[in-house]
C-alpha cells in the first residue's frame, strides 16, 4: 500500500466519538485516521492529547482510543512518524516529524472532518503567515478578496468605494503584494489601489497570507508579502456532492446565488462551480451612495487525473464584473470640487433614489484563467512539477463625459506563465526545491477611447531561477533561498500630440532570504526571517497619463517640472535617461507563538526598509479639458516601516473563546523626513465566539461578536484643501512637503454580530455589519473624500449540501 500526500497539504479525516460524562476525567476520545486523498486508513500514527500529554498509537486500521480525559475540548497532536518513514515524501527525515495540530471542538456529531492542515510553502517556513479556511471564506461570498482577509492582524484594506478593494500587508499594497491565484500570479491591471484583483472568493478553498518578503519563491512582486489563493483541491475518492447557496443583504438589496458540485473517483475527479451576485446602490445611514452597485458572474471548473507517478490537474475559471464607482466623485467644475471636499455629504444632485443600474463611472472587467499542472513523482524522494497558465484580462472603464458610451480605458492583457519545480531528494540533510519560471505579459490598448492611452502598449518578459533549501537540526530549522530574475520590457505609447514614443529597458536582479525557526518548550515557536527583494517599477508607475477615475495621475516618466517649477506633461522621458530606479527592500520579521492549554499568543514585530519606494502623491487641482480634477504624481523616496501585530486568544469556557488583536505600524519617508500617505491606522479588535452544540432544532450554532476600533491616522500628511490650493499661493513641486486634499477622518467604532447555524443538510447565517449604523469614513477608502461609508448591513445566507452514495 502506498499513500501519497498532497505536496503541500497534509490532511486527514478523523472520525471522532466522544463519550461525555458528567464527572471530570472520564471523557474518552476515539477516532480513525484516514488519508484525505485516498480514504485509506493511515496505520500506526501517534496521537497525543497536547494538554494532558496522554497519547496512543493508532492500530493498523488507523483506529485509536484514548480515555480518562479531563476535558471535552482537546488539542490533538498527530504525528505519523512510523508510518511516514517509508512512504511520506519530505516528511520523514532527520526527526522532521510532521505534526498535525488539530484544535478539536467537540460537537454533538459522530463524525468530524478535519482537513487542510497546511504544510507551509517551501521557502516561506520561517515567515510569519496565516491561513483562512473555506468555512471562514464562505461566511460571506459576496465579499471581495481583500475584505475576506481583512480581519487578520497586520492586514488591512485600501479601497475606492465599496467595490474596488485591495489588501494591504504591513503598509504595502498593489504591486508589492503578490496575489498568487491557483499557483500563478494573477495577471491584471494592477495599478496602485484602483483595481481590485478579479478573483471570486466563493470558489477559493483557502487563502494564505504571507507577511514577509517572499520574493525568492514567488517573484519580485512578493516584496511586501503574498496572498495565496488556492482552488478546490480536487480530492479523489469523494462521493458526488454538491452545494447550492443563496444570500441576501439589506444594504444595496444585494442577492447572490451559487453552486458547487464535485466528485472524486479512484483516479480522477472534477468540480464545477458558479456564482452570481448583484448589489444595488448602497446607502450610508443618511443618504444613498448613488452608483455604488455591482454585478458579478463567475464560473470555475477543474479536472484531475492521477496515476501512480503522474498527477495532472487542469483548471479554467472566468469572472465577469461590472463595478460601479460613486457618481458623486466626478465633477466638471472647480467649484463643484471645492464644495465636495468641503461638504459633509455629496451634492444632492448626485444622491438619487435606490437603483440596481450601474451607470458611468464604472469598470467592466473579464478575467479568464486556464491552467494546467503536472506533477511527476519519479521516486519516493523527489518529484517534478510543471505548471503552465494563460490569463486574459479585459478591462473597460467608463467615465462621466460627453462620449460616456465610449470607454476611456480599454485594455486587453494577456499573461503567460510556465514554471518548472523540482522537489529534490534529500542531499546532506537538505530539503528543498529548485525552480525555473517564465513570465510574459502583453498589454494592448483597443482603439476607440478617444483619448490618449492611460497605459501604453507593452510586452514584458521575465526569466527567473530560484533555489530554496532548509535544514532541520532537532528543534531548529534553518531556511535560505536565492533567486535571479531577468526582466525586459518593450513599450509603445502616444504622447499628448499623438506622436509615438517607444522605450525599451531591462533589469537583472538578485533576491535572497534567510530564516530560522525554533520550536521549544512544546508550546512555543519562534521564527525569524530576513529577506531582500527588488521590484521593477510597473507600467502605471512609469507611464500613467491623464484621467483615471476621479483623478489625474502622471507616471514617473510622463511629467517634469520646467524652469519655473511648473508641472509639464508634454514630453516622455526614456527610462534609461531618467533617474528612476527599481525598488529594493529589506524586511526582517520575527514572530513568537505560544500555545498554552487555554491561551495562545502570537506576537510579530517587523522592520522594512525600502529604497526608491514609489508612491503616488497629491499634486493639486488641475483643469484638463474634462474639467478640473485632483491630480497626483508618482515620486520615489526611501521609506521605513516598523510595526507589530499581536493576537491573544483565550478559552473562556467550554463554548466561549475570545481573541484580542492589535496592529500598529509606524512609517516614514526617510529621505524627505516626512510622513507617508495612505498608511493603515492603528486598529484594535476583539472577537468573541460562542460555539453552541445544540440549540433548539439546530445541530450547532456559532455566535460571533466582533467590536473593533480604528483610530484616526495620526501620521497623515498635512491638509491642503482644493480651496486652499486654488485660492492660496502654495506652489507645489516635488520638494514641497507632502499633503492630502482632506484631513484624515476621525477614528470609529464598529460592531459586527453573526449567527451561523446548521440543521440537517442546511447551513445558514445571519450577520449584521455596522450594527450601530455608525456614520464614518475610513482613511484608506479613497471615496472618503466625498462620502461616508455604507451603514448597517444585514446579511442572510442559506446553503444546502447534498451527497450521493455511489460506492
Amino acid at each position, binding site marked *: 500500500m502506498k499513500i501519497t500526500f498532497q505536496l503541500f497539504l497534509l490532511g486527514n479525516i478523523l472520525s471522532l466519538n466522544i463519550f461525555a460524562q458528567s464527572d471530570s476525567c472520564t471523557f474518552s476520545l476515539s477516532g480513525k485516521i484516514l488519508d484525505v486523498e485516498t480514504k485509506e486508513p493511515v496505520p500506526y500514527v501517534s496521537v497525543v492529547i497536547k494538554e494532558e500529554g496522554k497519547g496512543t498509537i493508532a492500530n493498523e486500521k488507523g483506529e485509536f482510543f484514548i480515555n480518562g480525559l479531563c476535558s471535552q475540548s482537546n488539542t490533538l497532536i498527530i504525528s505519523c512518524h512510523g508510518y511516514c518513514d517509508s512512504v511520506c515524501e519530505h516528511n520523514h527525515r532527520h526527526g522532521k516529524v510532521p505534526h498535525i495540530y488539530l484544535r478539536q471542538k467537540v460537537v454533538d456529531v459522530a463524525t468530524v472532518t478535519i482537513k487542510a492542515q497546511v504544510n507551509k510553502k517551501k521557502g516561506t517556513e520561517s515567515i510569519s503567515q496565516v491561513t483562512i479556511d473555506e468555512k471562514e471564506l464562505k461566511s460571506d461570498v459576496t465579499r471581495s478578496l481583500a475584505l475576506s482577509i481583512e480581519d487578520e492582524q497586520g492586514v488591512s484594506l485600501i479601497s475606492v468605494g465599496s467595490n474596488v478593494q485591495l489588501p494591504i500587508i504591513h503598509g504595502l499594497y498593489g504591486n508589492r503584494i503578490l496575489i498568487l491565484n491557483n499557483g500563478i500570479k494573477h495577471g491584471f491591471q494592477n495599478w496602485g489601489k484602483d483595481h481590485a484583483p478579479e478573483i471570486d472568493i466563493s470558489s477559493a478553498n483557502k487563502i494564505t497570507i504571507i507577511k514577509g518578503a517572499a520574493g525568492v519563491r514567488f517573484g519580485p512582486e512578493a516584496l511586501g508579502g503574498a496572498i495565496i489563493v488556492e482552488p478546490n483541491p480536487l480530492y479523489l475518492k469523494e462521493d458526488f456532492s454538491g452545494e447550492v447557496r443563496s444570500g441576501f443583504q439589506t444594504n444595496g438589496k444585494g442577492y447572490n446565488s451559487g453552486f458547487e458540485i464535485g466528485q472524486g473517483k479512484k483516479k480522477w475527479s472534477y468540480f464545477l462551480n458558479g456564482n452570481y451576485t448583484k448589489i444595488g446602490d448602497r446607502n450610508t445611514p443618511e443618504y444613498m451612495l448613488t452608483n455604488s452597485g455591482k454585478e458579478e458572474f463567475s464560473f470555475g471548473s477543474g479536472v484531475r*487525473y492521477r*496515476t*501512480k*507517478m*503522474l498527477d*495532472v490537474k*487542469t483548471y479554467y475559471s472566468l469572472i465577469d464584473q461590472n463595478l460601479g464607482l460613486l457618481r458623486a466623485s*466626478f*465633477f*466638471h*467644475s*472647480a467649484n*463643484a470640487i471645492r464644495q465636495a471636499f468641503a461638504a459633509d455629504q455629496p*451634492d444632492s*444632485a448626485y444622491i438619487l433614489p435606490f437603483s440596481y443600474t450601474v451607470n458611468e463611472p464604472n469598470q467592466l472587467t473579464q478575467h479568464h484563467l*486556464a491552467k*494546467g499542472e*503536472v506533477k511527476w513523482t519519479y521516486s519516493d524522494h523527489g518529484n517534478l512539477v*510543471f505548471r*503552465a*497558465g*494563460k490569463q486574459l484580462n479585459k478591462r473597460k472603464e467608463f467615465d462621466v463625459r*460627453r*462620449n460616456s458610451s465610449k470607454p476611456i480605458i480599454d485594455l486587453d492583457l*494577456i499573461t*503567460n506563465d*510556465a514554471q518548472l519545480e523540482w522537489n529534490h531528494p534529500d542531499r546532506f540533510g537538505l530539503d528543498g526545491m529548485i525552480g525555473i519560471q517564465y513570465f510574459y505579459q*502583453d498589454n*494592448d*490598448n483597443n*482603439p476607440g*477611447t*478617444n*483619448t*490618449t492611452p492611460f497605459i*501604453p*502598449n507593452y*510586452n514584458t518578459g521575465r526569466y527567473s531561477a530560484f533555489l530554496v533549501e532548509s535544514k532541520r537540526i532537532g528543534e531548529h530549522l534553518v531556511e535560505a533561498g536565492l533567486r535571479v530574475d531577468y526582466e525586459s520590457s*518593450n513599450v*509603445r505609447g*502616444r504622447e*499628448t*500630440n*499623438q*506622436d509615438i514614443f517607444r522605450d525599451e529597458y531591462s533589469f537583472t536582479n538578485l533576491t535572497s532570504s534567510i530564516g530560522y525557526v525554533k520550536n521549544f518548550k512544546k508550546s512555543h515557536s519562534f521564527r525569524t526571517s530576513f529577506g531582500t527583494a527588488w521590484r521593477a517599477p510597473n507600467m502605471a508607475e512609469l507611464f500613467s*497619463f*491623464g484621467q483615471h477615475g476621479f483623478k489625474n495621475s*502622471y507616471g514617473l516618466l510622463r*511629467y517634469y517640472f520646467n524652469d519655473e517649477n511648473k*508641472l*509639464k*506633461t*508634454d514630453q516622455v522621458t526614456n527610462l534609461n535617461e531618467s533617474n528612476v530606479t527599481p525598488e529594493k527592500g529589506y524586511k526582517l520579521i520575527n514572530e513568537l507563538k505560544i500555545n498554552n492549554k487555554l491561551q495562545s499568543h502570537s506576537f510579530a514585530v517587523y522592520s522594512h526598509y525600502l529604497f526608491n519606494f514609489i508612491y503616488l502623491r497629491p499634486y493639486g487641482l*488641475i*483643469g*484638463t*479639458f*474634462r*474639467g478640473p480634477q485632483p*491630480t497626483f504624481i508618482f515620486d520615489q523616496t526611501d521609506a521605513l516601516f516598523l510595526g507589530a501585530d499581536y493576537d491573544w486568544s483565550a478559552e473562556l469556557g467550554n463554548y466561549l473563546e475570545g481573541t484580542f488583536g492589535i496592529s500598529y505600524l509606524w512609517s516614514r519617508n526617510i529621505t524627505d523626513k516626512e510622513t507617508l500617505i495612505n498608511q493603515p491606522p492603528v486598529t484594535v479588535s476583539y472577537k468573541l465566539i460562542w460555539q453552541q452544540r445544540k440549540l433548539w432544532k439546530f445541530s450547532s450554532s456559532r455566535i460571533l461578536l466582533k467590536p473593533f476600533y480604528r483610530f484616526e491616522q495620526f501620521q497623515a500628511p498635512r491638509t491642503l484643501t482644493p480651496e486652499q490650493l486654488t485660492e492660496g499661493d502654495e506652489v507645489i513641486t516635488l520638494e514641497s512637503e507632502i499633503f492630502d486634499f482632506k484631513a484624515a477622518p476621525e477614528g470609529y467604532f464598529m460592531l459586527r454580530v453573526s449567527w451561523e447555524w446548521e440543521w440537517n443538510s442546511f447551513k445558514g447565517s445571519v450577520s449584521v455589519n455596522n450594527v450601530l449604523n455608525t456614520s464614518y469614513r475610513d482613511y484608506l477608502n479613497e471615496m472618503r473624500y466625498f462620502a461616508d461609508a455604507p451603514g448597517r448591513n444585514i446579511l442572510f445566507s442559506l446553503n444546502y449540501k447534498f451527497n450521493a452514495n455511489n460506492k
Partner: protein
Amino acid sequence: MNKMNKFRKYSMIPMLAAAVLLTGCEKEEDEIPEEEHDHEVFTDVKLIFTNTQDSSDVVEALAQDPDYEGVEELTVLDSINLDADKTYTLTFEILNVHEEEHEEEEGEEEEEHEDEHAEDIGAEIAEEDDEHQFFFAFSNDAFSNPLGDGNIDNAADAINYNDSDDNGNPVGLSTSWETSSSSLSGGYFTVRLQHQPGVKTASSGANDGDSDFDLTFVLNIE
C-alpha cells in the same frame, strides 16, 4: 501493458494543452496604440460680441488649452473690451483643434488654427441643445439690459437668450447684451456651459449637471 500506454497518452494531454496555452492566440508583438483624438473637448473657446448696428464692429475674446490632453487648462488669453451704450449679440466659436501642428504652436501667441483640422463643437451643442445651457455672471449692472449680475447665482435672473431648444428652454448660443452708459474697468464676465442631459428644465440652474467649461474674462466697458 495497455495501462502504461494510457498513462503516456493521458500525460500528453496536459503537455499539449500547455503548448496551446503558451502559444495560442498570440498577438502582434509590436502593436502601437492607435492615434486617439478626443472629440468631446474644447481646445478653443472664442466669445464673439457683434454690434447689432454695425456687423463689422466685432469684439472677440479667446480662451485656449495650450497642451491638449496635458495638464494645462483652458487659459483665458484676452479681456473683453466693449463700448458703452451699445447693443451686442454674443455668439461662440467652440472648437476642438487636434491637428499635429497644435503642439508646435504652443507658446506662439494667438496663431490661428487651421479650421479644416478643427471640429466645431458649437454645432454639436446646437444639435444637443436640449442638454445644454449657457449661464452668465458679470459685474453688477455692467449692462443696462440685462440688469443685475447674471443668472449663475440665480437661474431666474435676467439674461436675454435669443435661442431655445425643442422644449422651449433657453440655450445661449446666441444672447443679446446692451452695455451700460457708465464705463467699467477690470470687471468680470463669466460664461459657464452646463451639460444637463436629462436634467435641463425650465427651472434648472447653473449648478445642475456638469460644467463643460467655466471661464471668467476681464470685462472693460468704455
